[in-house]
């Protein structure tokens, strides 16, 4: 009996011509695959700097009509470390792998419906019986990710493993893109349902710790934080950062101060924190965040450091591979804010740390994202997840391991 093929390859190109970059990255990944292994799924991570249609066309010209999903990035990740203005293509060839790819549109208008549609179309394309989990790509500029996840869970079940990263656009905060088969879209979600013989292991960590006094969220509306302890939320922010810094934040939008000190909303247990970044300031003293805010919850300012961030990446990698016997590849969805916080040198060290955990022979690929999605207790295997809360947050690193 022939041994089971468990192969995954990663191709990369920094060619300035979008079409050529796509073709080069795809061809490079294709060349590394064993000749007998048929390609079953392609994942594409492309810089938003490229002409997205030309990029995808370039990828498909090399790969042909195979299931494909991907998204634009705020930076790309390969085994060699972080990259920018480039394209990464991951090819999976695993005996017994079954997958289905689906897309849901208008995630900004009706996120729950978009989630339902993505899950439904992915299910329709899925030809197997055993489902391991769903990789999720979405629009990083859309704030209703929690609703998207609810939509997905309504179709797939609340105990189903859903994890992924939301697309970026090289920190321009203008428009992000999602790829599904040959299509490029914005304000959409793409779900990749994985199953058959494969397993999906995920680990989500952020490495931030609470630093300020806890405050009660007394008023909130969707992603807008209105009052804390019955005082305008911005005034509490000013207490800690000072008037000048907050004024700069008002002018510049999301800056390093906001990145370094995200707000943490306490989850169901004392050590669960949902991270949010403040993206804009309202005239009424409210703070608009990049994710849903739960009224009545406790909130604290969080602090991060480079060392904590690096340790978090290692923990996430360990969690991801824990339930796998053999890892084909590791996908890293790392928050764009962490890349800024870590700086160029330590961002490279972070990937090295992940490689140290998963082993040098396991290919690593991924991208820097605007938000990350995974169950709070991401270390649990899909079987053990029972009605878990899916954390949709920013500032964290999500490691997803695909294997058997």
């Amino acid at each position: 009996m022939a041994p089971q093929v468990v192969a995954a390859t990663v191709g990369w190109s920094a060619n300035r011509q979008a079409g050529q970059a796509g073709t080069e990255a795809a061809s490079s990944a294709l060349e590394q695959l064993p000749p007998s292994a048929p390609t079953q799924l392609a994942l594409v991570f492309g810089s938003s700097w490229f002409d997205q249609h030309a990029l995808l066309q370039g990828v498909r010209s090399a790969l042909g009509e195979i299931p494909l999903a991907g998204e634009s990035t705020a930076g790309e990740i390969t085994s060699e470390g972080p990259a920018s203005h480039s394209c990464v293509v991951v090819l999976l060839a695993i005996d017994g792998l079954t997958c289905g790819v689906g897309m849901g549109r208008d995630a900004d208008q009706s996120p729950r419906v978009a989630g339902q549609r993505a899950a439904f179309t992915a299910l329709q394309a899925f030809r197997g019986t055993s489902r391991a989990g769903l990789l999720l790509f979405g629009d990083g500029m859309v704030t209703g990710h929690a609703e998207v996840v609810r939509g997905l869970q309504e179709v797939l079940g609340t105990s189903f493993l859903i994890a992924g990263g939301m697309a970026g656009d090289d920190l321009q905060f203008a428009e992000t893109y999602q790829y599904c088969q040959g299509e490029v879209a914005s304000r959409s979600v793409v779900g990749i349902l994985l199953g058959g013989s494969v397993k999906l292991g995920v680990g989500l960590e952020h490495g931030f710790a609470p630093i300020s006094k806890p405050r009660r969220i007394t008023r909130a509306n969707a992603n807008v934080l209105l009052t804390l302890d019955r005082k305008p939320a911005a005034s509490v922010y000013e207490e800690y950062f000072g008037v000048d810094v907050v004024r700069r934040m008002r002018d510049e939008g999301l800056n390093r101060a906001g990145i370094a000190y995200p707000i943490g909303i306490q989850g169901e247990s004392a050590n669960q924190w949902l991270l949010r970044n403040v993206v804009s300031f309202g005239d009424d003293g409210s703070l608009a965040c990049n994710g849903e805010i739960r009224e009545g919850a406790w909130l604290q300012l969080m602090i991060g450091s480079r060392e904590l961030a690096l340790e978090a990446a290692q923990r996430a990698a360990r969690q991801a591979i824990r339930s796998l016997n053999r890892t084909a590849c590791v996908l890293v969805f790392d928050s764009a804010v962490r890349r800024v916080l870590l700086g160029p040198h330590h961002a490279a060290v972070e990937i090295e740390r992940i490689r140290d955990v998963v082993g040098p022979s396991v290919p690593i690929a991924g991208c820097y994202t605007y938000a990350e999605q995974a169950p709070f207790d991401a270390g649990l295997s899909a079987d053990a997840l029972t009605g878990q809360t899916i954390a949709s947050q920013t500032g964290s690193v999500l490691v997803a391991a695909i294997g058997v």
Partner: protein
Amino acid sequence: MSYLIYVVFTIGVLATLLLTVGANWSPHAAGMTMTLLGVLGYLAFKAEMAGRQLSELGRQLSELHRLQAAYDQLDQQTKLIIRTDLELHRTQEELDRRLASLMSLHQLGRQLEVSLRPDEVFSKLDAAVVTNFGFSKGAIGMCASLDAIQWCSLIGVSEPHAEALRAHLQASGLLKRVLTNPTPQVLRAIASLEPAQQRLLDLLQVPAAVIAGILPHSGPAGFLILGRTSAGAATSKADEELVAILTNHLAIAVENSALYEETWASRRELERKVQERTRELAEANAELVRLNKAKSDFVSSVSHELRTPLAAIKGYASLLASGQFGPLAKPQGERVAKMEKHADLLTQLITNLLDIARIESGRVTMERQPIPVEEFLNTIHDVIQPQLQAKHIRYTVDRDGVTALVGDPQHLPRVFINLLSNAIKYTPEKGAIRVGLKREGPSILATVSDTGCGIGPEDLQKLFQEFYRANDPINQQVRGTGLGLALVKRIVEAHQGRIAVTSERGKGSTFSVTLPAE
């Protein structure tokens, strides 16, 4: 507190006893009294406990206040730490940005080094480079003159905006200022900003921008405008310095590419000229070869034609000299002898000319066979012996272990006989002539040295030319064809050898012949 309880308790006991005594002692009253005392005791105990708890609560409250104060103090310190840390973050951010910019500048510099055309230089400044420098918008234009702007790269700027920007730069005079000022200008959206500059920021839709000219020594080549969509960031001194370095790089690259273009054009012109001259030379050479062959053919045919009548002349002169047609008078005999002598000279001249012509035309192939040196030199010595004896010249040979020469046995002796005949001719009586042989690597060096009158430097260059005779008194006395050394040179070269001469007037000459040893 407890003191008050005991007082109350004691008063209670006394009051109970008084009530009991006052109510006439009875067992029922005693029981009531005891119960009352018990209740009082219990109440006193509870009051004591409550007092203690109250005291503890007060203490805890005080502790809580202290903890609250400490917590608030810690929170205040947290605020201080956060603000200090934010300053550090800001510095770190600036450092990271500058580092990324410098890295990008370094990479761009390497790319610019290999840019061969000015438009190629401008095209290197694309979106990736601009974003690596920390800017989000950019417009890079080439302009040979103030009214000819050609956009090379537009990052985050739409075509309609670019058109409006072009018109504004020209109409407002901003472009002229940029192209005449080597220092980058930082524009910030503040109240004191000139309306023309504010309009530029509005067109770019940025709150701040840097604008700078690309100014090589040869004259303005272009300009760039870089801006950030987020406020505050594009206003640092570092940005100004970075853009100044960048424009300098670009200016140097434009200059280099122009120089390269110029050099390339010169090289192409030079190559074209060289090719033209080479072709002309090749044609001239072919013509010379053709003429030389024609000359050789002519000499060859003329010599052939001359030889027959010359043989007849010589034959008849010999017959006349032998007296077959009757005795000759003395003057007649002398004239006939002169005829014979000149006929011999002419024959030798024709023979030499024919040999030269044959060798040149390739009709004579030199054999390559070993020639024993001893026999070779003896034969030559036999030929020149009478002349040596006549002038009492000392003749020596140094073979230095050389036992054989390789060459044509028919032609090689002519080389040595010619050289030795010349040596004897120019060496005075009782002089010396030396023949030397020596192995030098793959060759054999043969030298013929004499102690003759030597050759002037003006004659050395032309010595091997046909019909050239050195201008010296001996040549004026001794007649010669002027073809001997020319023939020697042709024979040596036909053997793949070389011939050279060194001489000093009054000190003799040395002819060196190098021949392949195998």
